């Protein structure tokens, strides 16, 4: 067994070394791939707060990812066309500034997560899985029919949004930005796990009855986790939209919800770095298997299956053995 922190360290080093090498070797696409992995990891870290710590199996997290994406798309669209964004009572100008977009994405997805969570947490188990899926689908179909912003086709943002002091169109700079955000969120996540809230939430997942018996409301804890989770995934959505300079309803699809969940489980549910490892492995598999055969998804399926069947606890579980978040 390898200590979990060694795996984490290796992962962090890998995420720094590989893109640096790619920069030196003039392999910008490797950097793009790494950026994709980092952003997907961020989305999965978000889901992991609800799923891994809170025990909320949400099959609707694409809703938040999509909201983040569309916040970016809509704000940037209004900025690049110099049209105001009409919000009914008042209108605001679009923006191409990433920090503003991020903030808007976080706030809006947190708000939507609060609404969806409050309604969905009335249910549990499979019903929770399905009601979150239903909300995701509603957003999907809404985006498909939202003609002002491209409908099913989605919309392109021609120039990547800006961040003060950086040229975000340079792959390595955008990668660094995403990596820093991921690191920041992971740090906050690590603090959260050890905090009052983290302890209570973790107990609410394991024994909700106990949590009630000590005078806390597990549902409120879980709702808070769901909101945080949605906010992080929303941020990832805004970044993903910027990576592709494109948003489309596919960001809202249930398949994408499933994919983020796969990342979490693949790496190790509830582990701090589980989603990161899951995302890196997934992107790598997709890339390398795709080079081997047109039918690469068969092999991806087989690998996933083997991991579920024989490596409960994901890859980190396989490497490091069973252990909770606390150590």
């Amino acid at each position, binding site marked *: 067994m390898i200590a979990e922190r060694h795996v984490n360290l290796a992962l962090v080093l890998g995420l720094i070394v590989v893109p640096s090498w790619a920069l030196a070797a003039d*392999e*910008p*696409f*490797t950097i*793009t*791939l790494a950026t*994709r992995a980092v952003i997907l990891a961020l989305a999965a870290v978000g889901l992991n707060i609800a799923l891994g710590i809170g025990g909320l199996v949400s099959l609707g997290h694409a809703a938040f990812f999509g909201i983040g994406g569309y916040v970016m798309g809509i704000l940037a669209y209004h900025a690049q066309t110099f049209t105001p964004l009409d919000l009914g009572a008042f209108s605001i100008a679009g923006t191409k500034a990433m920090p503003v977009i991020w903030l808007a994405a976080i706030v809006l997805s947190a708000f939507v997560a609060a609404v969806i969570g409050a309604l969905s947490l009335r249910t549990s188990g499979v019903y929770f899985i399905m009601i979150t899926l239903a909300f995701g689908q509603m957003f999907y179909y809404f985006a*498909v*029919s939202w*003609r002002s912003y*491209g*409908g*099913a*086709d*989605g*919309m*392109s943002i*021609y120039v990547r949004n800006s961040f003060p002091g950086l040229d975000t169109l340079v*792959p390595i700079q955008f990668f660094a930005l995403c990596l820093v955000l991921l690191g920041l969120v992971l740090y906050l996540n690590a603090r959260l796990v050890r905090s009052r809230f983290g302890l209570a939430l973790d107990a609410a997942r394991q024994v909700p009855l106990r949590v009630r018996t000590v005078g806390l409301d597990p549902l409120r804890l879980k709702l808070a986790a769901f909101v945080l989770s949605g906010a992080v995934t929303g941020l990832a959505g805004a970044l*993903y939209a910027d*990576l*592709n*300079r*494109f948003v*489309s309803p*596919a*960001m809202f699809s249930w398949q994408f919800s499933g994919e983020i969940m796969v990342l979490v489980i693949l790496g190790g549910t509830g582990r701090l770095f589980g989603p990161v490892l899951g995302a890196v492995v997934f992107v790598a598999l*997709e*890339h390398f*298997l*795709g*080079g081997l055969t*047109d*039918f*690469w*998804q068969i092999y991806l399926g087989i690998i996933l299956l083997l991991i579920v069947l024989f490596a409960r606890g994901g890859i980190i579980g396989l490497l490091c053995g069973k252990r909770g978040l606390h150590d």
Partner: protein
Amino acid sequence: MRKLFIAAALSALAGAAGAEVKVGMITTLSGGGAGLGIDVRDGFMLAIEQSGRDDIEVVIEDDQRKPGIAVQLADKMIQSDKVDVLTGIIWSNLAMAVVPAATAQGVFYLSPNAGPSQLAGAGCHPNYFNVAWQNDNLHEAAGAYANSAGYENSFLMAPNYPAGRDALTGYKRMFEGDLAGEVYTKLGQTDYAAEIAQIRASGADSVYFFLPGGMGISFLKQYANSGVEIPVVGPAFSFDQGILQAVGEAALGVVNTSQWSKDIDNPTNLAFVKAFQAEYGRLPSLYASQGFDTANLLLSALEKADPSDPDAFRAALMEADFDSTRGKFRFGPNHHPIQTIYARKVVKEGDVYTNKIIGVALKDHADAYADECKM
């Protein structure tokens, strides 16, 4: 996802500085819509092979029909592979995600299929050429055909997404009769019983539908079995060689519009059909012909200029000096084809369902957006 085809004699390249021209093909090779991408790829590669040129390297990648993947592949091909020309995208939404950014980076894009109106109009670009069509073309032709067939009251149906709305707009642009109804279905819908009931009740004398892929198969099968006898017209998408076999008898006799058909009588086309069949063991589809024409356009331009000289290369592309499977072929000012579109009828030849040209729907037709293109 990645496949490397080194066209023609790979061994001839040994030790050389590598291929002189690099082409990136992003197309759909896995999942539901893979048939179209495979046909485009096979048609394209057939032409490259026939050319005998060994200095063209084609990098082929699967976009899985996901816009996000397509954008990343484009980034990769432009940044890492340093391709001169991109091609291959099937779907308009993927094209919209990829093309504007790619052409802005100085790469040429030759579209073998998708032709969204934005790229033909205000969003046109000197480096973007569409070898297939502007998306509205076949629908406009269908509207024109409906006029000539004497239809006066059409029922229109398309999925509720931009291409669907554009399709019906295209039909209405040419059609002079009345509309008995206009229905937008769910994207990916598989059951059309409700719509067929509306058609039955509408009093229409003709039905025009645009339902690409499996949607069209489902509709045609259900329609043929519904007892509704109102004649149907569609664009070629639902009647191409690939899916016609899946529709089967339900498609027999249906008129559809296409800029290509395997019975267009010119030597290039006859040779193409024969060669494609010999190479891949199946009849070529519309998409295969488009892939083939795209490659031949590229080859013709490469004869005259090198992509490293963009102005010359662009001019060479614009000349479209190649033998198209469609016969006469030229570009309009917005780099979209001005071409003849035929009305075809589905027939059975032996055991195989295929199309037969019954007439010309629109002659030398240019798209409606060219005026908006400023370049």
